[in-house]
């Protein structure tokens, strides 16, 4: 009896989690792939027999859809501008925070981390007020130095930059902590050895600090690129993709096609294009890192 319990106990431990993961993660992945080759929509949802396979039609249509193409361009812009800024700022702040372990500095650390755990809807409400063209704080502060009202969220191009600014503010915290943890794990010996060799500050940074951070930097770059390619919440809550689709990202496009227009097949196809882009870029990074070594 107890022998039997011992035999099945691992399955009692992993069973519930694996079952739920199977139903709500594994099955959906397979379903998504199938749906993306169908014309599944609201009618099909009510009556599955009305759903038919249409081969690669969804994918063909996607690349002739001006909004989808725009969403790709916008997403690349978010990634291209946002990721370098976030990484540089979070590394910079981590280097500064690493100067001291006093209570004051851990207070600073907490402040920089706060935005990353703040609810996105609350963020949208606060920043929507700050960005307000008439009553917002930002335009008021700019008016003090005689700068005209900035259409923060009203102009397609400026709106993209405004969303990036917001996302950078929200995104610094997590990476900063990762860099800080990595910095604190560099053995003091390395610096002492460098001191004995007469290394100056820049040399120490270049030959001790940076190489020791190489894995942390790689990790952050990979996760940041994956995260920003899925840029979604900021345009979703701030602009809904507007003005003139100027802030639509690929992830927002998928959401809108799926849940606003109920074109489930079409949206699933778009989600696989996004997935392919993510896999492609991640593979390139792993290859580059290998050839680096």
């Amino acid at each position, binding site marked *: 009896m*107890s022998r039997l319990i011992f035999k099945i*106990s*691992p*399955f009692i*431990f992993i069973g*519930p*989690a*694996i079952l*739920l*993961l*199977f139903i*709500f*993660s*594994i*099955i*959906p*992945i397979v*379903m*998504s792939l199938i749906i993306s080759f169908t014309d*599944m929509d609201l009618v099909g949802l009510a009556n599955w027999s009305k759903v038919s396979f249409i081969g690669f039609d969804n994918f063909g249509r996607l690349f002739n859809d001006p909004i989808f193409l725009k969403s790709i361009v916008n997403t690349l812009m978010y990634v291209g501008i946002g990721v370098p800024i976030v990484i540089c700022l979070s590394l910079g*702040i981590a280097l500064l925070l690493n100067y*001291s372990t006093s209570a004051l500095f*851990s207070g600073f*650390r907490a*402040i920089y981390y*706060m*935005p990353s*755990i703040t*609810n*996105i*809807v*609350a963020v949208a*409400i*606060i920043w929507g*007020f*700050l960005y*307000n063209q008439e*009553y917002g*704080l930002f335009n*008021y502060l700019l008016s003090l130095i005689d700068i005209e009202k900035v259409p923060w969220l009203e102009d397609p191009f400026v709106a993209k930059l405004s969303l990036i600014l917001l996302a950078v*503010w929200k995104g610094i915290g997590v990476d900063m*902590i*990762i860099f*800080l*943890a*990595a910095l604190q794990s560099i053995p003091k010996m390395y610096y002492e050895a460098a001191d004995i060799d007469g290394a100056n500050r820049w040399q120490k940074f270049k030959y001790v600090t940076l190489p020791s951070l190489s*894995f*942390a930097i790689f990790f952050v770059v990979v996760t940041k690129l*994956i995260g920003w390619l*899925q840029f979604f919440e900021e345009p*979703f809550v701030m602009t809904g993709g507007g003005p003139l689709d100027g802030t639509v990202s690929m992830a927002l496009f*998928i959401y809108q096609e*799926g*849940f606003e227009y109920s074109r*489930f097949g079409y949206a*699933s196809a778009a*989600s696989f294009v*996004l*997935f392919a882009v*993510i896999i492609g870029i991640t593979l390139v990074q792993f290859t580059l890192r290998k050839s680096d070594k």
Partner: protein
Amino acid sequence: MSKKWEVSVVGIILALGGLITSIPFIWMILSSFKTEREALSVPPTLIPNNVTLQNYIDLFNKLDFDIYLYNTMIIVFFSMIGLLLNTMAGYGFAIYRFRYKEILFLLVLATLMIPNQVTMIPTYLLVNTMGLTNTMTGIVLPGLISAYSLFLIRQFMATIPMDLIEAARLDGANEFRIFFNLILPLSKPIISIQMIFAFIGAWNSFLWPLIIANDDKLYTLSVGMSLLKGQYSTSFALQMAGATFMVIPILIIFTIFQRNIVQGFNMTGIK
């Protein structure tokens, strides 16, 4: 190693950056105590002239923030159940040897690489087929298991010496007593950090409840707030009160546990 004046300069730079980072929070809290009139005044006032709590009262009178708070607390409760299941699975994968273990664990890791957008639509269709749309079960169930949290817990538990478990078995403890009385206390560092993140995630949960709940009896605080943003789009003071109400509990929890969060990242082994 560093000179004193250097630390001071760095401190001043960090203080300036910290001030800029916290402007949105400061503005939110100050504006939430203003009257609607004052919130729209040009030039804006920094400190409210007439401090009022009316906005906070209105959250419960004009909107159903009591219901939203209740629903959010239910989601928080279930996220803790989910964490227990994650922990059990993490333990199962770390300690036992059984058939198909490697394949199952790879499957868990594979789900980590799939973007949310890919699974969101089929998960909705699945929940819809089960007749769970517009129910609390439909909101809670799909997010119960976090592969990431399961993975981190497994990594931590794999470092627990097997001898300890063998000794407990020899003493006649059964597998579940070992898990609850020996393993859980030993894993306090990783579990406490996962609890904080589970709480933050549940408290902030927005997109999935928004998709699944049609009825405002099921709305969470976030969903209720997006409603507030739409319906009272010019009542900025009321909006700021709503945002403050959402953000402050998280900031308090975070301030209490922030030491654990940093240690938690050290534990993940990203160095």
